């Protein structure tokens, strides 16, 4: 029980430190609230004018999740880049708690910030566009939503360690951010993608999460299908987290061998 408690505290303190550092940045409100709000607003207008049926499942959920994903991935990765510049990454590598748990706390903090983007999308839909969000089973919706968020965090954890070894990671991350959104079918159904792409899509947990979310607001919600998706998300997220732990360990080893952390 004690390790669980101390690990939870470590994750929480990482979240606190991340949010405090972020809020001390003069431009944080613009980066994390105003810019995503503008993007969300544009996406909602485009869909609202086109087809109202797809407004909630694709425009609202899609823009909300896309904003959250961008904040999580870029935030977690960028925080490592900042650690590198500040020279604190070296201390994270030699502390007894290890890098992975700290990174997980950071990613969770950024996903929390990302949730505000999702909240913005929902609020705009209801209060600006007057489109009510009707979910067939609110418990299933909440579970599917939270798991989708965690699956994005886990996916971010798989990609963020690249920032430790590659100084050019921010450029790569920009491309990956969009690619993941494309493959996960955030603003359209995955079925429109070529079959080969669909194979990749279904290895990504958020694809199943997005599908589950859409089912909860569709007129033909089948709890069984949502449950199947939930189980798949849990399994894939678990696999991502195991892989990310292994990846961080192997990158740590590589960094110790190469000794290039001081270069920024």
């Amino acid at each position: 029980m004690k390790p669980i408690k101390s690990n939870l505290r470590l994750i929480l303190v990482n979240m606190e430190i991340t949010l405090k550092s972020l809020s001390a940045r003069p431009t944080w409100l613009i980066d994390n609230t105003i810019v995503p709000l503008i993007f969300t607003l544009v996406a909602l207008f485009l869909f609202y004018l086109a087809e109202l049926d797809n407004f909630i499942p694709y425009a609202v959920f899609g823009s909300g999740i896309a904003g959250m994903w961008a904040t999580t991935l870029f935030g977690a990765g960028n925080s490592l880049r900042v650690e590198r510049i500040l020279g604190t990454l070296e201390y994270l590598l030699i502390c007894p708690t290890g890098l992975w748990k700290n990174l997980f706390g950071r990613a969770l903090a950024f996903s929390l910030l990302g949730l505000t983007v999702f909240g913005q999308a929902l609020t705009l839909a209801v209060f600006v566009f007057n489109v009510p969000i009707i979910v067939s089973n609110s418990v299933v919706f909440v579970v599917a939503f939270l798991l989708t968020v965690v699956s994005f965090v886990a996916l971010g954890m798989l990609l963020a360690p690249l920032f430790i070894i590659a100084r050019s990671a921010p450029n790569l991350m920009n491309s990956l951010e969009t690619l993941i959104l494309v493959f996960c079918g955030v603003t359209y159904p995955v079925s429109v993608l070529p079959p080969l792409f669909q194979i990749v899509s279904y290895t990504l947990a958020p694809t199943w999460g997005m599908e589950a979310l859409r089912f909860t607001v569709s007129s033909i919600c089948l709890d069984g299908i949502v449950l199947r998706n939930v189980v798949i998300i849990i399994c894939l997220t678990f696999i991502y987290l195991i892989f990310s732990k292994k990846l961080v360990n192997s990158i740590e080893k590589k960094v110790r061998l190469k000794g290039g952390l001081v270069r920024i």
Partner: protein
Amino acid sequence: MEKVIEVKNLVRIYKSEVGYLRKKIREVIALNGISFEIYKGELFGLVGPNGAGKTTTVKILCTLLTPSSGSVKVLGCDVVKEANKIRSRINVMFGGERGLYWRLSGRDNLRYFAYLYEIKYTEINRKVDKLLDLVGLSDRADEKVENYSRGMKQRLHLAKCLVNDPEIIFMDEPTAGLDPAFAHDLRNFIKKLRNEGKTIFLTSHNMTEVEELCDRVAIINKGNLVALDSPQSLKRQVTNYVTIEVEYQNPSSELNSNLGKMLEPNFVTLEMEKRNLILKIQLSQREDLFKVLHKLYNAIYGIKNVRIREPTLEDVYLKLIGYQKK
């Protein structure tokens, strides 16, 4: 005495790629088979010129870098295979402005590091307050680190490296860039830590500091240990050495250019201080003292002052490293 650090034939090679189309691997040998041991409660100094391998040694000992070959044990544990067993029992102070969260307060920095070192949750706040008090930062604890002076950042580094009450503390050039008053305070603090039984591994460029603080000193150059002993024993290598400092005015350029030749084989440096020139002659034979003084008396007019200084650790350093360069 109990050995807490054992280094045997430590080699560290850095590999980097050179070129764009035809890439080649360039190897730099940072440590070339060094061996030494450090005992519990000892204050051990490692000195050497820039790029000699001091920081690399510290990084290997604190598990941040992997040795290319050789064996390194800290507190009886291998730094590669048993790194996790070591980390909670040691801490490191790299010094300088890096290594702190600038946008957080000093208190938040310490709190965070206390969590990273798995300090008991109920003790963290009390411990952080105590450390802030110890380094004299209590009054400014809630200010952002970006507003701290260099000295304050160094104090925070010091508090940070004590957060887990480590058995061994690695300090990499802790007084570099500090004003003399704070450097003096820091040296006293280091002595206090040693008196409390901590083992301290210190690297520095300041020979006076190393001579004052360290029980034993290792001199490293180009990845090789060139000397290892107590400061007193090391100074015995240069008992013949005496430094004469001659302060004089109105020198002729001809005289200055001939001084080196005139005083051969002794080591001569010339420094300008205000409107006076200070000639430093390091004699390699004590017996030459009166002969050299006589030569100077005949050659230089306007001598204002003559000082004769006994050998220091700096002389040992210059003999082993400085002279090789000259």
